[in-house]
C-alpha cells in the first residue's frame, strides 16, 4: 500500500499544472481508448470462445470431456509474452511457419497481435468462471421455460445467459485487470496502452516523473473495473426463490454434434497450447547453443536468486495472515487477508514505479537492489501463497491445537509441534506457486531489476523486441518448462484437496 500512496502524494506534490498537462493531453486519451478497446475486445473474444467450451465440457456428453476440461486450462500457465513471442516468430516472410510449411502467414502486430495473444492467455480465466457458473446453476429453470413454450434457442438468451451474468462479470473483471496490467504482450506488439506508454515514459527523458501520471491513470482504471463489478453484481439476485432443491440434469446428448464439438475444442487447444509449445521447441532446436550456454545459465541463476527468497518471504508473510484470518476472524484480520488481493490486482508496472520512487526517497541505499525486487514479488504474489495455506488450515482443526494444550504444550510449542507439521503440504504448494510465478514474471522485473541483472523473462523480452527470435527460443523453452511444473503443482494441489 505504501508505494501506491506515495505515488499519489508525489504526483500531487509536483507542480499541479505539470501533472495536469501530463494527464490531460491528447496522448493520454489515445492510450486510454487503446487500453479500453483492447480490454473490451479481449473480453468479447474470450467470452465468445469460452462460453461454448465451458458448456461443452460441463453440460454435455462430449467425448473425453475430463481430458478437455483439464487441457483447456493449460494456456493459463503460458505467460502472455511467450504467446506474443510465438505469434511474432511464427509469422512473416522468414517465420517459423514458412520454414515448416513453406506458407508464409502474416505477422500479427499492434492491436490484432495483442488481441490474439491476450485472448489466448486469458481464455482459461473466463472458462473457469463460466464453468463454475454453469455447474452451480439451476437447470430446472430451463425446463420451466421450455414447458412455457419457449424454443431452446430463445431459452438460452432468456434464461441461461441472465443466470450466467455474475460468472461473465467476474470473468470480465479478471480479464480486464490482466489486460490493463499486461506489459509483455503490448510492448512486444508495440501497441500503445497505458503500460507500454508507462514503460516508454520511464525509459525516456523524465524517468519516474514522466511515468507517474500514467501509473495513476492505470490504477484508476483498475479501480474503476473493480468498483463497477461490485456495483453490477449487487443488483443481481440469483438465489432460488421458493422451496425445492436445485436439481442437476443429466448431461445433454450431443449425438451427431459430438464431432463438431470435439473439433472446436481441439482448435482452441491447437492455438492455445500446441502452437506455442511447437514453435518454442522448434525455435530452440534450431539454435547453435555453443557460446549461449553461459548466458542461459546466468539467466537461470539470476532468476533463481530472486525467486527462491521471494517464495520464502511470501510464504512466511502468508502464514500468519491466513492463520489469523481463519482462527481469529475479525474485520482486522479479514482486511489483512484482502491486502494480498490488492497486491494481486494492482497493475505491476504502477506498483513497481511507486516502489522505485519510495526507495529513492526513503531508503536510497536499497535503490536498484535485489532486495526491492524480492519485496515487490513477495507482495505481488502474496495471494498465491495465502490460498493453499488457508485451504490447509481447514484440515488442521482447532481441536488438535486444544488437544496439544491439554497435553501440556503452550501456544508456541503447539504451533511448532502440531499446526506447522499439518500445514506442511500447503506450505510446500505455496512455496512452489510463488517460486514458479516469479520465475516467469516480467513487468516488475523490467522496472526493478538491478543493473546487469538479467532473468529468463527479461532475455526473452529483449531478444524478441530486437526480433532475434532464435536467440530467445532457449530461454522461452526454460520458461515453458517452469510453466509445465506450475501446472503440475496446481493439479497436485487439486488432487490433494479432493
Amino acid at each position, binding site marked *: 500500500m505504501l508505494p501506491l500512496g506515495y505515488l499519489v502524494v508525489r504526483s500531487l506534490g509536483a507542480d499541479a499544472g505539470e501533472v495536469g498537462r501530463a494527464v490531460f493531453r491528447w496522448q493520454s486519451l489515445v492510450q486510454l481508448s487503446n487500453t479500453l478497446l483492447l480490454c473490451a475486445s479481449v473480453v468479447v473474444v474470450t467470452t465468445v470462445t469460452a462460453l461454448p467450451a465451458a458448456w461443452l465440457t460441463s453440460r454435455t456428453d462430449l467425448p473425453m470431456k475430463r481430458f478437455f476440461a483439464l487441457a483447456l486450462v493449460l494456456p493459463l500457465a503460458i505467460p502472455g509474452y511467450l504467446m506474443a513471442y510465438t505469434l511474432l516468430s511464427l509469422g512473416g516472410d522468414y517465420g517459423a511457419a514458412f520454414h515448416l510449411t513453406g506458407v508464409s502467414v502474416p505477422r500479427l502486430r499492434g492491436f490484432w497481435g495483442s488481441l490474439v495473444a491476450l485472448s489466448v492467455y486469458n481464455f482459461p480465466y473466463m472458462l473457469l468462471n463460466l464453468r463454475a457458473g454453469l455447474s452451480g446453476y439451476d437447470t430446472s429453470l430451463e425446463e420451466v421455460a421450455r414447458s412455457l413454450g419457449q424454443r431452446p434457442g430463445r431459452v438460452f438468451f432468456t434464461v441461461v445467459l441472465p443466470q450466467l451474468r455474475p460468472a461473465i462479470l467476474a470473468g470480465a473483471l479478471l480479464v480486464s485487470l490482466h489486460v490493463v496490467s499486461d506489459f509483455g504482450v503490448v510492448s512486444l506488439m508495440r501497441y500503445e496502452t497505458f503500460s507500454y506508454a508507462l514503460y516508454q515514459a520511464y525509459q525516456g527523458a523524465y524517468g519516474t516523473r514522466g511515468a507517474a501520471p500514467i501509473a495513476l491513470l492505470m490504477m484508476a482504471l483498475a479501480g474503476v473495473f473493480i468498483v463497477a463489478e461490485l456495483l453490477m453484481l449487487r443488483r443481481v439476485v440469483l438465489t432460488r426463490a421458493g422451496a425445492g432443491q436445485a436439481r442437476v440434469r443429466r448431461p445433454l446428448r450431443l449425438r451427431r454434434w459430438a464431432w463438431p464439438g470435439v473439433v472446436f475444442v481441439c482448435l482452441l487447444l491447437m492455438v492455445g497450447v500446441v502452437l506455442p509449445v511447437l514453435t518454442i521447441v522448434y525455435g530452440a532446436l534450431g539454435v547453435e547453443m555453443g557460446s549461449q550456454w553461459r548466458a542461459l545459465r546466468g539467466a537461470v541463476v539470476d532468476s533463481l536468486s530472486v525467486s527462491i527468497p521471494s517464495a520464502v518471504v511470501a510464504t512466511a508473510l502468508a502464514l500468519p495472515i491466513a492463520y489469523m484470518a481463519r482462527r481469529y476472524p475479525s474485520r482486522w484480520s479479514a482486511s489483512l487477508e484482502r491486502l494480498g488481493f490488492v497486491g494481486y490486482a494492482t497493475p505491476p508496472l504502477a506498483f513497481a514505479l511507486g516502489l522505485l520512487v519510495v526507495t529513492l526517497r526513503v531508503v536510497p541505499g536499497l535503490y536498484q537492489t535485489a532486495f526491492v525486487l524480492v519485496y515487490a514479488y513477495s507482495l505481488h504474489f502474496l495471494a498465491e501463497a495465502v490460498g493453499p495455506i488457508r485451504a490447509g488450515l481447514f*484440515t488442521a*482443526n482447532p*481441536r*488438535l491445537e*486444544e*488437544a*496439544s*494444550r*491439554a*497435553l*501440556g*504444550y*503452550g501456544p508456541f510449542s*503447539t504451533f511448532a*509441534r*502440531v499446526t506447522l*507439521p*499439518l500445514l506442511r503440504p500447503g506450505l510446500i504448494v505455496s512455496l512452489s506457486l510463488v517460486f514458479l510465478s516469479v520465475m516467469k514474471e516480467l513487468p516488475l522485473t523490467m522496472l526493478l531489476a538491478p543493473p546487469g541483472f538479467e532473468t529468463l523473462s527479461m532475455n526473452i523480452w529483449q531478444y524478441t523486441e530486437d526480433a532475434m527470435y532464435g536467440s530467445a527460443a532457449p530461454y522461452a523453452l526454460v520458461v515453458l518448462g517452469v510453466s509445465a511444473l506450475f501446472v503440475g503443482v496446481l493439479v497436485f494441489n487439486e488432487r490433494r484437496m479432493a
Partner: protein
Amino acid sequence: MKVPQLCVHNLTKTFAGCDSPVIRDVSFCVYPGEVLTLVGPSGCGKTTTLRTIMGFEHADAGEVKRGDEVLQDGVTFVPPELRKIGFVFQDYALFPHLSVLQNVMFGIRGVPKARKRAIATEVLWMIGLAGLEDRRPHDLSGGQQQRVALARAIAPGSRVVLLDEPFSSLDPDTRHTIRGEVRMLAERAKMAVVLVTHDQEEALSTADRLAVMRDGVIEQLGPPEFVYNHPANRFVAQFLGRTNLIECDAAGRVGETPIGKVELEREVRGAVTLSLRPEHLELHKPIEGRPGGKVIAREFKGHDMTYHVRIGSAEYLVQADAHCGFKVGDAATVCPRMAAAVVDDSGAEPVKHVRLPLA
C-alpha cells in the same frame, strides 16, 4: 473422609454477545476413582462446563481446584497446558501426522525418550491396543481411535480426565465395551473422571453420580438410581427415561389422583405433581374402589411389554412382563408399586420442609 480430586464451585460463564449465561453457579466435586456424568439436552452448557474446567474457556466467575491447587478463581488463571488434566474430545482430535505411539507419547514430558516410549507402550497395552503402535490414526476403526484418545489423555499421569461426548460416534457394541473400560480405568488408577453426554441411558449406566443440567444450571446431582427414582422436578423426571406425571391432591403421605389413592415419598399437602415411572405401576383387572380404564395400545419390546392405559381423560404408561395377558380393549386398572416422587410442589401449602438426605 475422602478428599476430592477436582472441585468446581459456582462456575459461571457468559459468551460475548449473549444476554444470559451459558452456565450458572455450577458446583460439584469428583472423588478419586469416581465417574461423574453431566447429562442434559444439547445446548444445556455441559460441554462449556467441561471446556471451562480445562481452561479452554475463561469463566467469568467461580473456582476450579485440582486437589489443593487453585486452577481458577478471581485472581488465578492457570493456562490449559499447566492444569495437568486429561481431555478427550468428541471427535478424538488425534494428531494425523503422528503414529499411535507418537500420539500417546506426545503429552509425556520431562523424562528420557526411552522412558516415554515405555510408558506409552504400557498404557496402550493396558487399554488393549498393543500391536497398533505404528499405525496412523486414519488406519484405525472408530473404537480404536477412541481408545488412543483415551490413552493419550491418561498417559501423562493426569489424575483428572474430562471426556466430551466420547462415545457418541461409536456403534452400540463398541460403546458398551469402552464404557466399561473407562469405569475400570477410573477405579484402577484412582482417577476422577467427568464425562459429558446427551444420552440419558449412557448417563445412567456409566455414572457413579450424575448431574442433570438444563439451561446452564445443574437441576439435580446424585447417584443414578436415586436421581432416576426420586427426580427433583418435572424436567429431570421426563429427561431420564419415560414417566407418568400425575396431578395429585396430597394430604400428608398419601394423595388422591385420577388413578386412585397413591402413597407419596414425602409429606406434603395441597396440589402437587407426582412422577411414577411405567415400571413403578402395575396392571390389574378392575378392582372395586379404584378408577377403571381401558388398554388402548401395547408395545412389545421382547423382554417386557409397555401398555398404554386410558383412565379418565389421561393416558398412562405401564410396564408389565411379556406374558401379561392383557389385550387392547381390555378393561384394566393401575396400581402403584411404590411411593410416588413429588416433582412439583409449587401449588402445595407451605409446610416445614423435610428433605430427603442427598447422597
